C-alpha cells in the first residue's frame, strides 16, 4: 500500500468514525446551505405569508364578504392594513430584532418615493426582474463597509385590486399597470464574509 493510499484510508476511517460526532455537536451551527438558498427560503416564507393575508383575509373580507375595507390609514379608518403594509411591518419588526438579514419591498414605480431602489445593485436587480419575467436576480454588493449577498424577487400584480389601487393612487408615477405585470420586487440582503 502506497503512503498516499494509506493516508487516504486512515483519513477516510477517521472521517467516517468522527463524522457522527461532528454532526451531532455542530449540525445546528455548521453552515450547510448557501446564501442563495437562505434568501430563497426566506422569500418563500414571506411570499406565502403575504399571499395568505391577501387571499384569506383581505380579499375574502373586503371583496367577498364586504364587511370591512382595507386602507393605507387602517388605524384612523378602522380598516385592514394593505398587504404591502403588512409586509413592511414584518420587515420593520425583523429589523428591530436582528441585523443578520434585512428585507424590503421596492419598486421602480413606487407610491412612496423612499421605496425606490437606492443602491446600484437594487436598481440593476429591479430592472432585471421587470424585464425577465419569472427569473430572480442575485448579486453581491458592499454597503457601509460590509459585503452583502442581495437577492431580488419579482412582485407581481396578482389581483385586479393591486392594479387599480396603484394606477389610481395620487402618488403613483405609473398609471398603466396590468394584471400579471411585475410591479416591484422583494429585496433580501444577508451579510457575507470576504
Amino acid at each position: 500500500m502506497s503512503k498516499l493510499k494509506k493516508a487516504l484510508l486512515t483519513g477516510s476511517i477517521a472521517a467516517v468514525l468522527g463524522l457522527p460526532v461532528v454532526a451531532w455537536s455542530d449540525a445546528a451551527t455548521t453552515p450547510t446551505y448557501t446564501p442563495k438558498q437562505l434568501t430563497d427560503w426566506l422569500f418563500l416564507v414571506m411570499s406565502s405569508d403575504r399571499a395568505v393575508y391577501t387571499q384569506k383575509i383581505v380579499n375574502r373580507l373586503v371583496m367577498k364578504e364586504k364587511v370591512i375595507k382595507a386602507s393605507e390609514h387602517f388605524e384612523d379608518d378602522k380598516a385592514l392594513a394593505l398587504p404591502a403594509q403588512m409586509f413592511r411591518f414584518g420587515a420593520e419588526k425583523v429589523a428591530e430584532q436582528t441585523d443578520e438579514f434585512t428585507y424590503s419591498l421596492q419598486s421602480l414605480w413606487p407610491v412612496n418615493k423612499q421605496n425606490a431602489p437606492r443602491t446600484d445593485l437594487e436598481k440593476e436587480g429591479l430592472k432585471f426582474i421587470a424585464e425577465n419575467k419569472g427569473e430572480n436576480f442575485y448579486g453581491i454588493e458592499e454597503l457601509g463597509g460590509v459585503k452583502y449577498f442581495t437577492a431580488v424577487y419579482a412582485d407581481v400584480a396578482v389581483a385586479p385590486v393591486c392594479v387599480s389601487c396603484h394606477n389610481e393612487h395620487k402618488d403613483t408615477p405609473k398609471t398603466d399597470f396590468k394584471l400579471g405585470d411585475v410591479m416591484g420586487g422583494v429585496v433580501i440582503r444577508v451579510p457575507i464574509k470576504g
Partner: protein
Amino acid sequence: MLKYRNTLLWILWAVFTVTLITYYVTTIRNKDADKAVFLPGKTSDGHYQIERACHTCHGDSFTNADVIQEACMNCHGDALKEAKDKHPKSKFTDPRNADRVAILDARNCATCHVEHRPEITLEMGLTLPLDYCHLCHDDIADDRPSHAGMAFDTCASAGCHNFHDNQALYEDFLVKHLHQPDHLEKPGTFPKPNLGEIAVLITDYPIDRYPLQKLGIEDHDAPAPIQFHQDTVQDWFETAHAQSGVNCTACHNQMEGDTFTWTDKPDHTACKTCHVDEVNHFLMGRHGMRLDEEKLNRRLSPMTPAMARLPMKKKTMDKELGCNSCHDAHRYDIKQAAVESCLGCHNDEHSLAYIDSPHHELWKKELSGELPEGSGVSCATCHMPRLEKEYNWGEFYHTLVQHNQSDTMRPNEKMIRPVCMTCHSLGFSIDSLADREVINTNFRTEPSIHIESMNMAEKRMIEAGEKKKAIRARAQEEEQAQKQEDSEE
C-alpha cells in the same frame, strides 16, 4: 534659599495634584456624590433636573454610544412608539441606507440631540443645524413641485412636518378634515376617568385587600394611636376613595420588609399601588422625574418651583412636588388639581392669561353645572389629557390622565388630535399652535399665522381626482376597444 523655595513649590504642587485627583476619583466613584463639577456645559431643559445623576444616561462606561442610546430609549422609547415614529432606528440600520447613515447617523438619538451644548441647542433639544431634512430629502421638489423653492429650514418649523410624530399632519389626514368651521358646531366632551368602574378587571389592582364597596364615615380604619382631625376623615369620606373601598390603611400602610407599617406621609409609591400608569407618567415628566429612583439609581430631592426654569410664583418656591402637592391629601379634588394647583406655582405669560381666556369661561360653566362634565377646558385638559388605555385588544378601556405634562408639548402638534380637535377644526388648531402670540394670550386672540399645508393638500387632492377620472376613462376605453376587437374576431 532658591533651592528650598523650589522644593517647597514642588511639594505644594504634588500635594495639590494628589488632592485634586483624589477628589475627582472619589466623587466620580461615589454613586450619591454631587457630580456638578464634571458637567461640561449647561444641560438642556429636559434633562437639567437629573444632570447630577450622570449614571442614568452615561452608564458605567461613560462614553459607550450603545449604553447612552439604551438610556435614551429607556425613558423616551414608549413615547416614540406611541407617536408612530416616522424615523425609527430600524429605518437606518437597513444597509440600503448606509450612505445616508454616513451623512447623518440617525440610529442614535445623540446624533441630533447632543446634551450639555447650550450654545447649539434649539427647541426640543435639537443640536443640528435646521437644514437636516435636506440631507436626505433634497430632491423633494421632484416629487412635490409645490415644495420647490421652500427654504431649507421650513420643513419642521412651519407646522407642516415633524421628524418623529406626524399623526396630525399627514396629507390624507389634512384632506379628511378640510373645510371645517374653526369652532365645531357640535363640540365633543372629554372622557371621565373610570378606574372605579374597571378596577375589578385589572389583575394588578389590590381588590382582595380593598374590595370595591362604599365605605361609611365610621368605617375608617386608622389604627387607634394615630391622631387625626375629624375634617380629614370627612374629606376622605367625600372622595371616590371612600366610595370605592379605599380605606386609610390602603395608602398609609406601606410594606416595610415583610410587614405593612403605618406611615404618616405616604408618597407616590403608595399611589402607584392603584394608579400605576398615572404615577409612571408623573415620573417621566418635569414634576416627578427627580423621584424616579429606579431609573436614576440614586435618590434626589423632589422638584421644587425654585429649581424650575420657567417663571414661578414666589410664595410657593420651596414647595416639594409629589402627588399630594397638586392633589391635596385626603380631598383629592381633581377639579382643583386641574387649574388651581397649576396656577398656584406657574407664573408665565400663558398661565397668567388663562383666567381671562375663553377656555376658562367654559371651565367655569362646567364647574357651575351650566355645561356638562367634560366640556370645560382646564390647564390639565391640554397639558394632562385623558387617555384610553386598551386592555386585551379592546375588551375594556381604562380612561386615565396623562401625568407627564410634557407629553403633548414636544412638539405641541401632539395636542391636536387628543385635545384641540374635540372642539376645533384641524386647520384652526394647526394655525393656533403655530402662533406664539396666540399661545401667550392663552387663545384669547385668533391666529394671525396661516399654515399652508391644508391648502396644498387640497390642491393635490383635486389634481389626483382629475387624474383618477382620466385613468378610469382610459381603462374603460381600452376595455371597450378590446370588446370591439373580440366581437370583430
